[in-house]
């Protein structure tokens, strides 16, 4: 939430103004969905968690403290719901990394269908797919820290707040997450193939 609109919006939210909440939904829909999908690795579950998060937000919005960063609050709500869900229905996923399956049509089929200018895009997409697959095979504590830092571009302090851990722990998770991700990528392909 930007500083200019923050106080006016916070006041509308505390009144339970549906328009204000819908504006928030529009603003955060992609970011929140991406975070939940990276966390859950399953579209149906991400959809479910997405809905639950916004319902919880609608329920708790009157208790939102505007002095607190809204991004952090929203992602904390989503994270708590996701962890509760995994703990209840898929406890094994909180401990064990599950390798993902590389999806999509074969590379040669895509290359044959496109001209040279499309080649870069295909390779880029392939690199992204490989990276998403590798990210998906990390334990959830590393997946979430990497997505919050690199995709959500959260500062270390915000990140620690969402994860509810000290700054040093957030930093350690970030480093270990990157190290594991690189290790996975390097065992899948030649070093630097993703760069």
């Amino acid at each position, binding site marked *: 939430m930007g500083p200019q609109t923050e106080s006016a919006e916070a006041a509308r939210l505390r009144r*339970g103004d*549906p328009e204000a*909440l*819908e504006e928030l*939904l529009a603003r955060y*829909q*992609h*970011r929140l*969905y*991406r975070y939940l*999908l990276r966390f859950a690795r399953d579209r149906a579950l991400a*959809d479910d968690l*997405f*809905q639950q998060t*916004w*319902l919880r*937000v*609608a*329920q708790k919005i*009157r208790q939102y403290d505007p002095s607190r960063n809204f991004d952090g609050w929203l992602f904390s709500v989503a994270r708590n719901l996701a962890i509760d869900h995994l703990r209840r229905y898929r406890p094994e996923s909180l401990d064990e990394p599950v390798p993902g399956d590389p999806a999509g049509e074969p590379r040669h089929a895509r290359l044959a269908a496109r001209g040279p200018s499309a080649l870069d895009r295909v390779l880029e997409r392939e*690199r*992204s797919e490989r*990276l*998403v697959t590798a*990210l998906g095979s990390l334990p959830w504590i590393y997946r979430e820290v*990497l997505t919050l*830092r*690199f*995709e959500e*571009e959260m500062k*270390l302090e915000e990140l620690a707040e969402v994860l509810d851990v000290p700054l040093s722990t957030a*930093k350690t998770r*970030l*480093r270990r997450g*990157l*190290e594991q*991700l*690189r290790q996975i*990528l390097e065992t899948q392909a030649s*070093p*630097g193939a*993703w*760069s």
Partner: protein
Amino acid sequence: MNEHDAIRELLPLAAAETLDEKEERRLDQHLLSCSDCAAELGQWRALGHGLRRLPTPQASAVLLERTRQQMRAQLADATERSANPWVMGFLVLLSWTFALATWPIVRFLTAGALGWLDMSFRSAWLGLVGYTVLGWIVAAVAAIFLDRRPAGRRTA
């Protein structure tokens, strides 16, 4: 752990742009004389760059619309629930005011036939106890009735 190994541990964090000033100075100093670490940092930065450029998955329009509708219903429900105690308080106050204000008229119209319902100061406590017990009984019956309603009707 020697300086070189310590710096190696900082490289992923440098790619994540989460080093503090002291660590950054230390890293810069080391990179001036270590081409291996400089090359390694390049690899980490490429990985960070790749993560930042991952395509963003989109929530479907159906999901968004469904979420929007549920959110509106939830808000309306929360608004109603927060207003309920005030409405109840207002109704109780209104009924007491109405009863007290109309009592002289009722007495006049019934030509004093209901005079035995007049509350004297001596029997006021008895009246209060009677009203309180009656209120509890009504509330208990209402609670039992509401609890026995089918779940579907309660959430509808």
